[in-house]
C-alpha cells in the first residue's frame, strides 16, 4: 500500500519550546488517520508544517513517495493538501461562494466566472453530501455550516489529502455524525484524511488508525480496532485518567442567580430568548442542553452583559444586575467563560500575564492609583499558570502563540480565580484534552462544593449529564424541560432537544 504522506524526523523549535522533536508520521492513501495528543503536544504545529505554514528546522516530507519541499500553502495545495484550521479563516461579510472562490478565482478574460465556479462547487457538494447555501453570508450561518465551507474550499482547490484540525470541537452531536459521514464518502473516493480530535469516541467511531503524540514526540501508531479508550487516554497523558468526576452530595443553598421572564433578540433582531425563567442556587450546577442556535448564546450574553435584554430581570444574589455595566456585573461576583475564546476570551496580542488580569487589572493589588503593579501581576500569573498547568515557556508569551487548549486553560484559570459566586460557563472544555477536561470539571465541581452557583452551557451531552445537578433543555428560545440529574439520560434530553415531549414522570 502506498503512503500518501510520510513525514520523517521532523523537528520544530519555537523560542523556549520544542513543538515537534524527531517526529515520524505516516498516512496511508484512503485512510482516516487520527492524530491525538494533549493540549500543546504539537499536533497543530506538525500539520502547519505539512501545510507549509511553518518550515521545519529538520526533517523531510514525502508525498505519494516523492520527496517534496513545502515552503508555503500554495505549494501544499499544488501537492493536493488541503487544511481546515482549528480556528476558521473565512471572511465573515462574504458569501459562501465568494469565500470558496477567494484565492482560486476562475476568471474569464479578467472577469470572475461565477457561473462556472458555482456549478463546480455544487458538483463537489453533491458528490460528497456537503450541502450548503452558496448565497448565504458566512456571518449568518452556523459553525457547522462554516466548517463545510472550509472543507469545500479545500476540495475546490483539488485536495486529495485533507487535514482537519479539531473539526468537531465546535460541532453539535448531529453535525459530528454528518461530518463523519462526509469523511467516509471522501475516503471512498480515495482521499486521505488526517483528523485531529480530543474526543476518543470519535476516533473509535471514524478512524482507521491513530497516532499519539506527547510533548512533541510520537508515542505510537495503532489500528483503532485494537485500541481501547482507556488505552488511548493513558498513552496520551502518560497516566490513568478518571473520566467521571466525583461530586459531593447536593446541598443547595439560597438562589444566587435568578432569571425572570427574560427576552432577548439576536443579531438579526429576531426574538431568540422568549421569556425564560429559572434559577441557579448556591452549591449547584445547572446545565443547559440544546441544539446550537436555540437561544443559549443570547441567554448567556444577556446574563453576562454582552447583549442588551429586551425585558425581564436578572438577579445575582438578590441584586438586579440587568442594567449594570459588564464591569459592575463582574464586581458583583459574576464570572464568564465565553463561548468564543478568540473573539471574547482573550486579547490575542496581550501576553499571558496581561490576559490573566483582563478584568481586574484596575483593582488592588494589581494596580495602585493609575499605575499597574507588574510584579504583582506577574506573580499572580505565574501562580495561575502553574496551578492550571498552562503549557508555556513563560508568562510573557503572547496569548496567540499558545496552543488552542492552553488558551482555554488561561481563561478558565482567570475566571475561577477571580473568586466569583456565580460562574457562567459556555463550552468550558471546548478543545481541551481528556486530562485537561478532567481538571476543569474537577475545578467547576470544587467551586460548586464551595457554594458557588454554576450555569453550564454545553453542546456536549456527556458533559452536561456528568456535571449538572439539574438540566434545563432549551428549544426555540424557550426552556422546554427540566430534569434532575438522576432522571436525565441522553435519550430523554435528545427528545426534548428536538422539540418533543417527555412523559411527566421524568420531569421535576
Amino acid at each position, binding site marked *: 500500500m502506498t503512503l500518501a504522506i510520510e513525514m520523517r524526523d521532523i523537528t520544530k523549535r519555537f523560542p523556549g519550546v520544542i513543538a515537534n522533536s524527531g517526529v515520524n508520521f505516516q498516512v496511508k492513501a484512503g485512510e482516516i488517520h487520527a492524530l491525538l495528543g494533549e493540549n500543546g503536544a504539537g499536533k497543530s504545529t506538525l500539520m502547519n508544517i505539512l501545510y507549509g505554514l511553518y518550515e521545519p528546522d529538520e526533517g523531510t516530507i514525502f508525498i505519494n513517495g516523492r520527496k517534496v519541499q513545502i515552503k508555503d500553502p500554495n505549494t501544499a495545495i499544488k501537492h493536493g493538501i488541503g487544511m481546515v484550521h482549528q480556528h476558521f479563516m473565512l471572511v*465573515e*461579510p462574504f458569501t459562501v461562494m465568494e469565500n470558496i472562490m477567494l484565492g482560486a478565482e476562475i476568471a474569464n478574460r479578467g472577469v470572475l466566472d461565477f457561473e462556472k465556479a458555482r456549478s463546480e462547487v455544487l458538483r463537489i457538494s453533491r458528490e460528497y453530501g456537503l450541502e450548503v447555501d452558496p448565497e448565504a453570508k458566512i456571518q449568518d450561518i452556523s459553525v457547522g455550516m462554516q466548517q463545510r465551507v472550509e472543507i469545500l474550499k479545500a476540495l475546490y482547490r483539488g485536495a486529495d489529502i485533507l487535514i482537519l484540525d479539531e473539526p468537531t470541537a465546535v460541532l453539535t452531536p448531529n453535525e459530528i455524525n454528518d461530518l463523519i459521514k462526509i469523511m467516509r464518502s471522501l475516503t471512498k473516493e480515495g482521499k486521505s484524511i488526517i483528523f485531529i480530535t480530543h474526543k476518543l469516541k470519535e476516533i473509535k467511531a471514524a478512524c482507521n488508525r491513530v497516532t499519539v503524540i506527547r510533548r512533541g514526540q510520537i508515542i505510537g501508531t495503532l489500528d483503532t480496532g485494537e485500541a481501547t479508550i482507556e488505552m488511548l487516554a493513558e498513552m496520551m497523558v502518560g497516566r490513568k485518567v478518571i473520566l467521571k468526576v466525583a461530586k459531593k452530595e447536593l446541598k443547595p443553598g439560597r438562589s444566587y442567580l435568578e432569571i425572570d421572564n427574560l427576552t432577548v433578540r439576536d*443579531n438579526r433582531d429576531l426574538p431568540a430568548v422568549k421569556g425564560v425563567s429559572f434559577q441557579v442556587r448556591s452549591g449547584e450546577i445547572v446545565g443547559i442542553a440544546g441544539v446550537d442556535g436555540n437561544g443559549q448564546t443570547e441567554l448567556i450574553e444577556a446574563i453576562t*452583559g*454582552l*447583549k*442588551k435584554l429586551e425585558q425581564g430581570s436578572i438577579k445575582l444574589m438578590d441584586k438586579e444586575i440587568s442594567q449594570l*455595566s*459588564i*464591569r*459592575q*456585573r*463582574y464586581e458583583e461576583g459574576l464570572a*464568564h467563560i*465565553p463561548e468564543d475564546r478568540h*473573539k*471574547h*476570551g*482573550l*486579547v*490575542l*496580542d*496581550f501576553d499571558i500575564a*496581561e490576559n490573566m488580569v*483582563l*478584568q481586574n*487589572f*484596575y483593582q488592588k493589588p494589581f*494596580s495602585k492609583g*493609575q*499605575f*499597574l503593579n*507588574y510584579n504583582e501581576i506577574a506573580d499572580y500569573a505565574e501562580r495561575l499558570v502553574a496551578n492550571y498547568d498552562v503549557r508555556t515557556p513563560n508568562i510573557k508569551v503572547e496569548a496567540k502563540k499558545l496552543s488552542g487548549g492552553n488558551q482555554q486553560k488561561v481563561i478558565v484559570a482567570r475566571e475561577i480565580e477571580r473568586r466569583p459566586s456565580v460562574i457562567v460557563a459556555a463550552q468550558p472544555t471546548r478543545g481541551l484534552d481528556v486530562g485537561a477536561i478532567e481538571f476543569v470539571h474537577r475545578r467547576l465541581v470544587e467551586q460548586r462544593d464551595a457554594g458557588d452557583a454554576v450555569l453550564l452551557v454545553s453542546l456536549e451531552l456527556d458533559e452536561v449529564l456528568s456535571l449538572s445537578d439539574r438540566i434545563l433543555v432549551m428549544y426555540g428560545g424557550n426552556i422546554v424541560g427540566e430534569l434532575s440529574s438522576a432522571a436525565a439520560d441522553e435519550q430523554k434530553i435528545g427528545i426534548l432537544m428536538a422539540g418533543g415531549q417527555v412523559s411527566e414522570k421524568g420531569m421535576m
Partner: protein
Amino acid sequence: MTASKRYKEFLHQAWLSIRLPLTAIFFGLIVGALAMMWVGIQDGLSLSQILNLPLTAYRTLFNSVFGSFYGFGESLVFLVPLILTGLSITFAFRCGMFNVGAEGQYIVGLFSAAYVGFTFNGLPAWLQMITAIIAAAVGGGLWAAIVGWLKAKRGVHEVITTIMLNYIALHIYNFLVGSKEWFKADKFQGSHAINPAIKIPQIGLFSPSRAHWGIILALLAAIIVYIILWRTKTGFEVRAVGNSNEAARYAGISVAKNYIKAMLISGILAGLAGGIHLLGTQARAASMSAFTGFGADGIAIALIGQNHPLGVVLAAFLFAVMKRGAPLMQAQAGIAKEVVAIVQASIIFFVAADQMVKWIYKRRKKQVKEVASNE
C-alpha cells in the same frame, strides 16, 4: 534571568525592531540615488558628473545637519513638532484609530496658544507662557475628542471626521487671523504679535539657529506616552481596545470611553505640537496658505516608528533631517526639488510598505459590532 542575559535580550529585541527601518532607509537612499542619476542622464551630464550627483547630494544632506551646530539646531526646530504629531498618531493608533486629524489639532493648538499669547498680557510672563501651552493642549485635545465622541456614540469613522475637521480648522484659523474685525495685525499676514517675553527660550549652543528648549518638552512627552501606554490602567484599556474591542468589551472595558479618551490624548499631543512650535519659533500666528504637513508627516513617523515612542523619536529625527536638508540639496547640490521629494518619498515608502501591509491585515480582522451599546 540574570542581568547580563536580560541586557543581551534587550539588545537583541532592539536590533530586531530597528533592523527593518534601517534596511528600508538604505534602500530608500539607493532608489533616491538612482532617481538623481536618471535625471542626470536626461540632462546630458558626463558619466563622472552623474556618478557624483548622489554623492554630493547625500554629503550635503549629511552636512546640513551634522556639519555645524547651527545646522543641527535648525533640524531640532522641525524635530519638536514632528515628535509630537508622531506621538499623537501613535496614541490613537494604539486604541485602534487612525487619526488623520493631527493637522487640524495642530492648527487649533497653535491658535489657542497664540490667543493666550496676545491677549492675556497682564499676566506674569511665566504664567502666561504656561497658560499658552496648556491652552494649546486643551484646544487640540477637545478638537480631537469630538472625533472620538462621534465614533463612540454614532459610529462615524474617524478618518472621515478628522479630514473634515482639518479643513474646518484651517479655514476658521485663516479667517480669525486674517480679518481685521478679529485678530489680524495691521501690517502683517497674521495675528497680533504674541508677547515676546513668553517665547520659549532658545538653546545658546546652537545659536544663531532657532533651536529652542521645547525639545525637552517633546522628549518628555515621549516618555510620558510610554508610561501611559505600558504602565497605567488607562494604557492597559487603550491597548486592549486597540487590539480587540470585542475582547475588551467582554473584559468590562468601555470601548466608547476609551475611544474618546484616546482621541483626547492624541489631540493634546498634536495641539502641543502647534503651541510649542509657535512659542518657540514664531512671532505671531501667521496665516497659512496650506496645511503645514506636520500632521501628515506624523502618520508616516508613527508607521516607521512602529507606534512606539522611542521609534517615533528616531523616525521624527529622520524626517527632521530631510526637512532641514532638502532645501540645501536643492540650493547647494543642484538637485531639483522634485527629485529631493522622490528621495524622501522612497525612504518613507520602503519603511512604510511593510508596516502598512501588517496594519491593514490586522484591521481587516476586526469588525466593530455593537460598539455604541452596552456601556
